[in-house]
């Protein structure tokens, strides 16, 4: 790569920028020197050379598996027995007819909603609190981000204990204020709240920092004129801050949708009460990604059905992302920009 740098220094004086060279080539049949030809190829090929390692690897480990998943989903394909007969859409039919699928779909959306809606609201409030002239500003920001360093598996272990049905701290505290213990590991909706709490704990501070960055880009004189118009602090937040950070708000909502619909570690670890760990004895908190695992590597040992589930999940994510996108456009039209 560096060989053409080693040419005698006298040569460098004749080097011309790319545009000049192209003109010279067109203007006549002047033979290019070896060095000029090298430079020309260098300019032309280098960009492709630099992006190709990424693309080759990415197509291999990112895109190819996704497409091949569709292929596998059309076959009878056992975890141990390997590829069997072509069976068309039978895997999709089997998955869609499995009552667990509908449960998993509802669970995933329910957990996603219980986690993302409060999370965005709390993160916005937190960002609003941080967007003031605090003492020890960096320290506050770092403290807020602290939960982000804990792996979801560890988060789930800690919160699984806190949400213990019999001896958990949360039921203990609820008992002290006269509330009956809640069956976090038995009741379907309670389990969703517990799992959503884990997600919120880890991500709220992270999202608050993203909102904070957007808030700091809001021109300060907007607040001054709002204040002159008699707007209080809350009113300033809802009428100035929120509309101004709308693009960031939408960005956070879309990314949390894509991540939230794939939730796996938290619900799986939360199931420490069954041997199969499929998401509760009655699949109260089985999610779509857990279903992929359960079909393929759990009890099912059926890679065909696992692939069909993966594609169904993919389609669901696309639908949600598209819905978000359309909502974005509508918001953007109604908004200030």
């Amino acid at each position: 790569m560096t060989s053409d740098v080693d040419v005698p220094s006298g040569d460098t004086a004749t080097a011309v920028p790319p545009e000049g060279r192209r003109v010279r080539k067109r203007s006549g049949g002047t033979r290019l020197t070896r060095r000029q030809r090298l430079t020309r190829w260098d300019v032309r090929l280098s960009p492709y050379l630099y992006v190709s390692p990424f693309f080759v690897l990415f197509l291999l480990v990112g895109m190819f598996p996704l497409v091949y998943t569709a292929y596998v989903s059309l076959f009878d394909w056992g975890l141990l027995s390997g590829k069997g007969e072509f069976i068309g859409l039978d895997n999709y039919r089997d998955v869609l007819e499995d009552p667990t699928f509908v449960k998993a779909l509802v669970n995933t959306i329910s957990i996603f909603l219980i986690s993302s809606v409060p999370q965005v609201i709390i993160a916005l409030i937190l960002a609003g609190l941080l967007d003031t002239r605090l003492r020890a500003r960096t320290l506050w920001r770092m403290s807020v981000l602290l939960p982000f360093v804990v792996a979801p598996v560890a988060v789930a272990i800690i919160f699984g204990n806190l949400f213990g049905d019999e001896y958990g701290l949360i039921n203990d505290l609820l008992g002290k204020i006269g509330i009956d213990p809640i069956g976090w590991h038995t009741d379907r909706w309670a389990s969703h709240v517990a799992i959503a709490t884990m997600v919120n704990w880890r991500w709220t501070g992270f999202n608050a920092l993203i909102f904070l960055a957007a808030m700091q880009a809001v021109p300060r004189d907007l607040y001054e004129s709002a204040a002159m118009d008699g707007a209080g602090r809350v009113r300033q937040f809802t009428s100035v801050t929120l509309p101004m950070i709308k693009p960031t708000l939408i960005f956070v909502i879309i990314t949390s949708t894509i991540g939230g619909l794939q939730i796996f570690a938290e619900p799986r670890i939360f199931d420490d009460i069954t041997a199969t760990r499929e998401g509760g004895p009655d699949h109260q908190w089985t999610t779509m990604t857990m279903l992929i695992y359960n079909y393929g590597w759990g009890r099912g040992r059926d890679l065909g059905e696992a692939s069909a589930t993966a594609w169904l999940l993919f389609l669901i994510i696309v639908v949600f992302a598209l819905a978000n996108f359309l909502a974005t456009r509508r918001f953007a039209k109604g908004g200030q920009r």
Partner: protein
Amino acid sequence: MNRRPGLLVYGLLIAFVLGSTAPFYWSFLLGSHTAAIAAQGTPPLLPGGHFIDNAQRVFDTVPFWKALGNSVLVSTVAATSVVFFATLAGFAFAKLRFRGNAALMAFIIATMAVPTQLGVVPMFIVMAKLGWAGSIWAVIIPSLVTAFGVFFMRQYLVDAIPDELIEAARMDGCSMFRTFLTVAVPAARPAAAMLWLFTFMYTWTDFFWPLIALPADNPTIPVALNQLQSGFFKDYSLVLTGATLATVPLLVLFVVAGRQLVSGIMQGAVKG
């Protein structure tokens, strides 16, 4: 907003930070008591003296050191590789003119929304065919590049390198690669550090694919934690000691580089 915060703001922030840190303490607290005490619900609120014993039991139950070594290896290689390939490609996308530039970049942005981890089935089949199933390479290889990395570096380098600087280097007779090394790499350094940190943490905490790809005797940290918990008897002092131990390495990283992480998230937000 430009105003001095009152007691209410500080009070709410303190409440939030307490909520953020309490689970850390809870994890260590239960890990410092015996299994019998931890099984009886809320323990004494001061740590007991059994953390070392419990840690020893964690090491006896799962291959913790092997898992730690694997996690360090996977995360370091992934982070370094992602940064290298992303800087190279990001530089080309940001600063070089070539046919297909815009189209390829649009492709990268589109694929950021595609959850590539849905491709676990073929990945598993291919790894088995190659004889890599169960080896740590099965986890390393798929994490070598990310679309996000290229996008992030491109966004950063577009503004970070003045075009004149590249032209000057070219005028001086630098080859393209030489220009990359002398102009782009130094300019990319802050973004590269952030991307490295993020990829490291992301890879360290990843669970879905490692759980599928790795056997019990060759886990990463999250997979080892999963095993620790799968016993019949719920031994909370054991699993919470494991959770505490697993958190320590990233906590150390956070203390060292948390400031950069914060500014990385905030800069990324403005750029993205």
